[in-house]
């Protein structure tokens, strides 16, 4: 029983971080955009879930009341309705994800367009500030996502009853696999080489006729859309959107650490990085209490310290990642021949 819970938890956590980290790998790993505002697009996706599906259903069901103030009771009725209507649940889920993708693209474009030409450090900090700003607005502007109190999301998995989290975890993981194949195809296609060219030497790339601004914008739009999917999925999965949760530590730096652990610009590497990181983290959380008799201080702080030390060790001993970037892969002659035949 407990083992199954652990597995499901792994599945869901790996799922959401895999999507985010793949998205990060696309813009930071392949294209060299120092995206320290990954959380920005993630929040965008979560806000879509907070704002649209609940209100739409409340309107459809003719519920009275303010969606934010009377949130829990309205969501309760909505969930009762969704529990008996599988089709509606699925339709709502898919529609919301699509809106989130669209919204993510817009956010990616808007956040990058004016900043695309400034240097690497400034761009990193600008994106970081934007992500943080989105969170501040979410916490203070209640109509968006309930402000500090947060808002419950309609439960599109309510039909599964007690197995709700089983289904949600599996769906989350399935999405991450789909995203993996999508990103992998994208980066192994000529686009991937173009991205690396831009990353490694902008001037050389430009001289080859690559429109650098265009490439970067396109990359950020795609990667933000992917991150927004992660945000929306996580909101549906956890059943609530609370703006205070969207911190730069959880959703920007952890994906960065995962990507560096696995090996940037290598999707298989990212998968291994995410998996290893999540597993290590869960083991630290779980087994730290075993150490408490030997410690002169509270074991909780050991967790914080170990967390930091883990990332530092990764950087020290695996600077290239578990599976370093392989440059030859896309230039494999057989692949090219196959592609030509196809």
């Amino acid at each position, binding site marked *: *029983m*407990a*083992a199954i*819970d*652990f597995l499901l*938890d792994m599945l869901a*956590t790996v799922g959401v971080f895999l999507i985010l980290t793949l998205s990060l790998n696309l813009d930071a790993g392949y294209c060299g955009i120092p995206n320290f505002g990954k959380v920005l697009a993630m929040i965008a996706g979560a806000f879509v879930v907070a704002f649209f599906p609940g209100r739409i259903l409340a309107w459809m069901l003719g519920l009275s009341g303010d969606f934010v*103030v*009377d*949130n*829990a*009771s309205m969501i*309760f009725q909505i969930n009762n309705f969704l529990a008996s209507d599988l089709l509606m649940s699925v339709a709502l889920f898919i529609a919301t994800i699509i809106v989130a993708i669209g919204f993510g693209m817009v956010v990616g474009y808007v956040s990058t367009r004016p900043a695309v030409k400034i240097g690497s450090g400034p761009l990193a900090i600008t994106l970081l500030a934007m992500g943080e700003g989105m969170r501040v607005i979410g*916490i*203070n502007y*209640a109509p968006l996502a309930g*402000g*500090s*109190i*947060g808002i*419950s999301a309609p*439960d599109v998995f309510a039909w599964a009853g*007690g197995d*709700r*989290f089983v289904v949600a975890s599996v769906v989350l993981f399935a999405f991450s696999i789909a995203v993996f194949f999508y990103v992998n195809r994208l980066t192994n296609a000529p686009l991937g080489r173009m991205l690396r060219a831009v990353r490694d030497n902008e001037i050389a790339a430009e001289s080859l006729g690559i429109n650098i601004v265009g490439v970067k914008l396109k990359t950020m739009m795609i990667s933000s859309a992917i991150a927004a999917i992660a945000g929306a999925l*996580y909101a549906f999965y*956890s*059943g*609530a959107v*609370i703006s*205070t*949760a*969207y*911190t730069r530590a*959880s959703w920007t730096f952890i994906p960065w650490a995962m990507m560096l652990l696995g090996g940037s610009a290598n999707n298989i590497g990212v998968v291994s990085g995410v998996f290893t990181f999540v597993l290590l983290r*869960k083991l630290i*959380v*779980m087994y730290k*209490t075993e150490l408490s008799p030997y410690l002169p201080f509270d074991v*909780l702080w050991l*967790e*914080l310290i170990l967390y930091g030390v883990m990332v530092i060790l990764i950087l020290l001993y695996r600077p290239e990642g578990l599976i370093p970037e392989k440059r030859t892969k896309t230039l494999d002659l057989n692949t090219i021949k196959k592609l030509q035949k196809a």
Partner: protein
Amino acid sequence: MATIALVVGLIVGIGAGWVAKPAEVTVGPGATATVTTTKTVTATAPAAGGLSGEVKIGWVDGLTGGNAFWGEQAMTTAEIALEEVNKHLKDTNAGWTMTLVVEDSETKPDIALEKLKSLHARGITIVSGWGTSGDLRGSMSYANANKILLLSYGSTAIDLAVANDYVYRLMPTSAQEGKMLVSLAQHLGVTYLIPLWRGDSWGDSVVNATRTAAAEVGISVDEGIRYNPDAVEFSAEASALNSAVSSAKAQYGADKVGWFIVCFEEGKAIYEALAAYNPTTWGIKWLTNDGPSLCDWVVGSTTIAEMVSTTDCIFPAKMPTPSGKMQEVQAEVQRRLGRTADLYGLNGYDCVWTLALSLMAADKYDPDAVIAQLPMVFEAYQGAGGWSPLNEYGDRVGRNFGLYKVMQIGGEWKWVQVGMWDFGTEEISWLPEPVVVY
């Protein structure tokens, strides 16, 4: 049968301990508390059966981040309770011991959920803590779907009151506090209220509830000043309050205007910032919510104590009904942390004991069985915080509010009780003489 006898015995014991306590209550810093040492538990023979070995209870709370200060005190009282529980279990040869598995949520809902899932994976399905509504909301869905009992010591958000779920809370919702604040305002003849509040789930729900209650009786509530809960410096807030007060006075007259603060420990920085504006000359009515009430930092600072006593500020507090037990726990908290706990802190103690009592009664580690016992346990539980049963939503029905002021007695600043607000009748009664609390 035996289990019922046990519960009744425990409850009667605790109740007896409370009744038998000396009337004089002295808690707080430096107080030589007259601790009742009556063993409050008169246990019957342990029920043979279900529970054995180490019984693990989870504790998820913000021990770093915004909730760190309250997390620390609630965990301290929880540990005090845990020691008592284990001593009792040992004395009665119950055959099991209780342990707390503490996890830090960093006051972030996503981390809270992660920690809850980790506890679940370790087979722990009874999890207390939950100092903030934000953390609680983020984990509710998971708890309900996986049948994990969450017992919160601090969440007060109104909309989280859902019937028949797995979430139980030791605080009444803010709706009640809103009513109390409004009846106080009415009593003082205030028709215009200016709130200054902590912009987190706790503060927001108190102010929202006050607005709702005020609208019913025709008191207007100013748009007020909501401050960032991470804020550590309150100059702009103080300045804005000063101008809000000026304009309200011009419009309604000083005697019709009141202001109230909804804050925790950061209140000391707010009052200090306010001091620069000579607020004692405002001439308006001063109120607070239960956050700063009975806190030692109010009487500990001359600036603040003088300010609130000259202005006759009324501090309501959900009554941790002064009792021998409360005194005992406060003395222990004082010993460990160098300060006393507020009701949020004392609730940590009550969380652990009520869970222990319910576990003893249920005699198996099963959230559903424990939940079945919880209402009965609360019906008769006195504990550190005082009696208050659960309502149909699994929150406590309500609390009488004590009304307190700060007075200078014998050259020292003291907390005194001046009245009470009864949650049943929703009316205020004043004591003939102020009673010194500490």
